[in-house]
């Protein structure tokens, strides 16, 4: 579903630069994402796709360019309202949940930070929404499977009612059957809550399944932007994207002997 360009983008990035010491991790990247759109960032390791996402979240040192949320440009320091609007789900559910906090405490923390009342019922509702149920409230992360942990991480992001969700490889640490469940959950949530998604993945099939449009990245810069339909129909202009697509189709034995 494409939204006409007239509306204010939910997220707009202009000539964004990220530099770590001498290394330019992001070399002037620009993109616009409409409200309720689902946008994918694809590329190999070192392409800058995660850096771009982290820069939006305020987790990478921005050295140039501008990030705009709903028409408002972000300053060097993000305010609290920003973190309520924009939430992130990380790749590794084994690393992103505090090992000595119960699920209840993990979900309560963002509520306390943002001064949201009514904790009890919000926590129960969030757990129901991600398909876990309140029976999981007083468990520790080590008592959960990888898929269940990722559901907790999604619940933690949703509990402050953001409008933009940043997803950094949300299913690449999960088994294929669990991945399908989590992807379905994310789609369901996006529909129910009218969210904007920005999703990073190395897996072209996952991104075309989840996103309307995507940007292929290489060496900290854009290769091209295209819609998922164009990718599926192979209406691609750049060799790099063609190679990536071919590689994702599996191994082909070279004909010899």
């Amino acid at each position, binding site marked *: 579903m494409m939204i006409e360009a007239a509306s204010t983008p939910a997220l707009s990035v202009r000539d964004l630069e990220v530099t770590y010491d001498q290394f330019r991790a992001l070399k002037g990247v620009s993109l616009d994402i409409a409200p309720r759109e689902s946008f994918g960032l694809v590329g190999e*390791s070192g392409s800058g796709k995660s850096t771009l996402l982290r820069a939006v979240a305020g987790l990478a040192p921005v050295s140039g360019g501008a990030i705009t949320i709903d028409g408002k440009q972000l300053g060097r320091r993000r305010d609290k309202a920003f973190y309520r609007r924009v939430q992130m789900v990380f790749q590794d559910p084994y690393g992103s949940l505090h090992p000595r906090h119960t699920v209840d405490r993990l979900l309560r923390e963002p509520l306390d930070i943002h001064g949201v009342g009514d904790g009890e019922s919000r926590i129960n509702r969030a757990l129901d929404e991600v398909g876990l149920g309140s029976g999981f409230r007083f468990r520790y992360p080590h008592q959960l499977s990888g898929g269940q942990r990722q559901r907790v991480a999604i619940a933690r992001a949703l509990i402050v009612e953001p409008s933009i969700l940043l997803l950094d490889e949300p299913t690449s640490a999960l088994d294929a*059957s669990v991945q399908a469940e989590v*992807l379905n959950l994310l789609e369901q949530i996006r529909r129910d809550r009218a969210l904007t998604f920005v999703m990073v993945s190395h897996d072209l099939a996952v991104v075309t399944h989840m996103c309307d449009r995507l940007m292929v990245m290489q060496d900290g810069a854009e290769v091209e932007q295209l819609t998922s339909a164009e990718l599926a129909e192979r209406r691609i202009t750049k060799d790099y994207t063609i190679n990536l697509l071919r590689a994702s189709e599996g191994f082909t034995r070279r004909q010899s002997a």
Partner: protein
Amino acid sequence: MSAPLLDVQNLAVRFPTRTGTVEAVRGVSFTLGRERLGIVGESGSGKSQTGRAILGLTAPSAQVTADRLRFDGQDLLTISNAERRRLRGKRIAMVLQDPKYSLDPVMSIGRQIVETLRTHERVSRSEARKRALAMLEAVQIRDPERVFDLYPHEVSGGMGQRAMIAMMLIAGPELLIADEPTSALDVTVQLEILAILDSLVRDKGMGLIFVSHDLRLVSSFCDRVLVMYAGRVVEELAAKDLSQAQHPYTQGLLNCMPKIGASRHPLPVLERQAEWAR
């Protein structure tokens, strides 16, 4: 047909824990010739423990039993640890998932390869160096002299995995067990590594066991695939017949992966049946 390279009958691996015994592998049987066999399953299916049991790398607390576990006529269940060590690295080798963890971080790549070779063969230092450089070239490292002196943290993941493969193949093993050898790598690098493995396995006539969670990748690479679920082989099929898989688990696993160009919302999910685990 000659005797198989590897003969596994009713292999079981059990881990005694405080809360009872965990049966990681429950009666796996297969034979392997000089071919490429894939073992596919999700986490906890027992695929890695099967590979480790063959190599004798199961944790000491576990019990490994089998009706038969023979490599080239030798009974792997009764041989001594010393004999095991002589086999390991020399005749049976293993490539692990992530070169970041499986290479020694404080030893240069060249020295690690030379060490492997000199453990198993009596060769002079200069001869060992020459062979290590030749091996690095065989895994398509363009500048072997330079890479020889590098440490694992100085190379990329793809380069590290090439070095790992070079180290595993230098003693000329007859059986190679590759446990998720490309899962930590980018797709394009993954294919390069697989092409190298493929040509080396073919040229040297090795047997290969390719352990992976990726059913489609494995079936595009191997001759035959075993699908494991809850410690058992639920289905064995020729890789080219993957689309005709009979077992509902295999079908479900194939079905639940997103495909480019197929619009399926929501994705079909796997409905696990209790009887698959029996």
